[in-house]
């Protein structure tokens, strides 16, 4: 056995590495479970049987899976151009502001016009917010990670202002007014029809990145900003474009979540909307797991969603503490980081002197 530098990383290699990092995560998580006094086999059975059972978690798994898909796609596109979009949380909040503003002010409109308007304005608000980061990154090379986290916090307090003591304050304490019924997302069973939008964007991004000039430009900027400049591409335009589109996708997630989940139909109290905002960070893990491939993002996001939905079952049924789902995600993220080592190196077995399989 010996380490060898990898010359190319094929899609299959990357898939293998992702699967190994998931297995490693489940092993490490088992240790934590045993330490907490829970049988890991039972816990995993609990996770998967709850998450994929139509009587229990399946509806939520798909709804959340599509929410994660929006978040993942919003993360993938900018990173293809080398820009870390950790501002999905803030773009999602701004999408919330846009969608609810339309939902409240134009509530007399029929569903057929109201819902598309909410989606469009939500997407535009998200895009505008993302574009701030894109512009400053492209123009001045401001550190996009710190910048986006600051914007996330500002967006958090903006929603806080709107619903706690602000103009959208509802009857109950610290929640917004409910959305009018005409603004609710049409459902296909337990799943909102916005699911189709998420799937369509996956396909669209896949073709954009592989078949169109702009996709080629994005990938060039991602691998070398000098090369992109020499080839006459404008880093500023590309960076604006990817962040605005990423922000728009994150903005769409807001309507999907709030209007498509029968449990919401309003902005819940700060603690709860913050929890949903925190979920957007799962998009980073999903995006890295599927090696920034928009089509592979669909099964990845659904799988990760199942893990989070299932681990909330652990909290309830097996009495494990609050925070266990994010711990699972953290371990997955860390293991994925460690396994990235194999993006550059691979293990080869030595058969005979000089001959390598």
């Amino acid at each position, binding site marked *: 056995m010996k380490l060898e530098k990898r010359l190319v990383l094929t899609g299959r290699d990357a898939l293998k590495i992702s699967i190994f990092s998931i297995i490693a995560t489940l092993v490490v998580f088992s240790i934590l479970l045993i330490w907490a006094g829970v049988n890991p086999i039972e816990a995993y059975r609990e996770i998967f049987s709850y998450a994929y059972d139509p009587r229990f978690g399946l509806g939520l798994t798909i709804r959340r899976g599509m929410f994660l898909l929006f978040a993942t796609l919003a993360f993938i596109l900018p990173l293809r151009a080398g820009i870390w979009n950790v501002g999905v949380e803030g773009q999602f909040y701004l999408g919330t502001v846009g969608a609810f503003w339309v939902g409240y002010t134009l509530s007399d409109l029929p569903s057929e016009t109201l819902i598309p308007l909410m989606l469009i304005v939500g997407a535009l608000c998200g895009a505008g917010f993302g574009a701030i980061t894109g512009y400053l990154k492209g123009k*001045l090379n401001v550190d996009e990670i710190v910048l986006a986290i600051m914007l996330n916090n*500002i967006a958090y307090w903006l929603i806080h202002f709107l619903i706690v*003591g602000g103009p959208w304050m509802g009857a109950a304490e610290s929640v917004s007014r409910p959305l009018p019924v005409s603004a609710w997302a049409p459902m296909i069973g337990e799943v909102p029809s916005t699911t189709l939008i998420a799937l369509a964007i996956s396909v669209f991004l896949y073709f954009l990145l592989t078949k169109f000039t702009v996709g080629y430009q994005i990938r060039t900027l991602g691998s070398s900003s000098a090369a992109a400049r020499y080839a006459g591409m404008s880093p500023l335009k590309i960076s604006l474009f990817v962040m605005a589109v990423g922000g728009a996708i994150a903005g769409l997630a807001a309507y999907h979540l709030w209007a498509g989940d029968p449990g919401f139909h309003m902005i819940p109290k700060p603690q709860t909307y913050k929890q949903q905002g925190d979920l957007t960070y799962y998009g980073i893990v999903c995006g890295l797991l599927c090696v920034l491939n928009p089509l592979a993002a669909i099964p990845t996001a659904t799988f990760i969603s199942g893990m989070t939905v299932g681990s909330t079952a652990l909290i309830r049924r097996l009495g494990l*503490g*609050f925070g266990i789902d994010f*711990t699972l995600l953290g371990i997955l993220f860390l293991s994925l*980081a460690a396994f*990235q080592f194999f993006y550059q190196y691979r293990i080869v077995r030595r058969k005979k002197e000089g001959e390598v399989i």
Partner: protein
Amino acid sequence: MWPFVGKSLEMATLFMFAALGELLNQRSGVLNVGLEGLMLFGAASSFITATLTGNILLGFLVGMSVGGAVGFLHGYLSITLRVNQVVSGMAIWILAFGLTTYLANPFTGPLPRGVSSWRIGDLLSPLFFVGVGLVFVIWFILSKTHLGLRIRAVGEDPSVAEASGINVVRTRYLCVIVGGVLGGLSGAFLSLTYLGSWSHNPVAGRGWVSLALVFLSMWRPWLLFAGALVFGTIWQFALSPEIILPALGLPLQFYRMIPFAVTIVILVVISTERFRKRWGLAKPAALGLPYAKE
């Protein structure tokens, strides 16, 4: 008024510890965006220890050790395994977010009676002066000693440093571990002294602002000190604006946005070309790049 000054200086102390550790990291070429996570780990472990043992000092020691261990973990991933440092740092942050919530949630509430940090005249923790001392020490090491020269060389061009006989790996490990200890100390100071209690996610963005502070300081310890004082005051003002401006009557949420908005404005200003050409030269050229001895 005096309690406000004391609290502001304590907030500045927090920023000083965390940002100084990160500055040392970055001067050696390692970027740790998981600073928020380091602080969370330090805050939770020290709080749990102090609650269980009733010993504040032990709490601080555990917080610093855990910080050092997490710093080592980041070092292992980014120096030895050479993975993307942003991925590794983000992973540490997300893990800290989940694990500290899971472990420390049962301890939600104030420290037990009789367990509290000592303050000078009930106003200011003596650790503020430790922080000021540390600024001096780090400045002295970085600019006046052989060790500092080594650290800066490793951060500028590791292969040249290696060729001149410096052990790049060992120097970087030293910096990430010390940086981790300082991040843990900052977290411990937050939960044991500044807040004296635990609630969900107590760091609340301070780690990210500390990371920004390192950029804003342009990697100079004394500018970092000045920045920490300014941000400590701004953050404290955002928490309790009524002490300074009783009559303004803006909604509370707008004050809470101020530290983040100010950070953005300063980040943008220092990123302008004029500014960068004149002042930004201290940025370690190899920052964030993995180093492989070929």
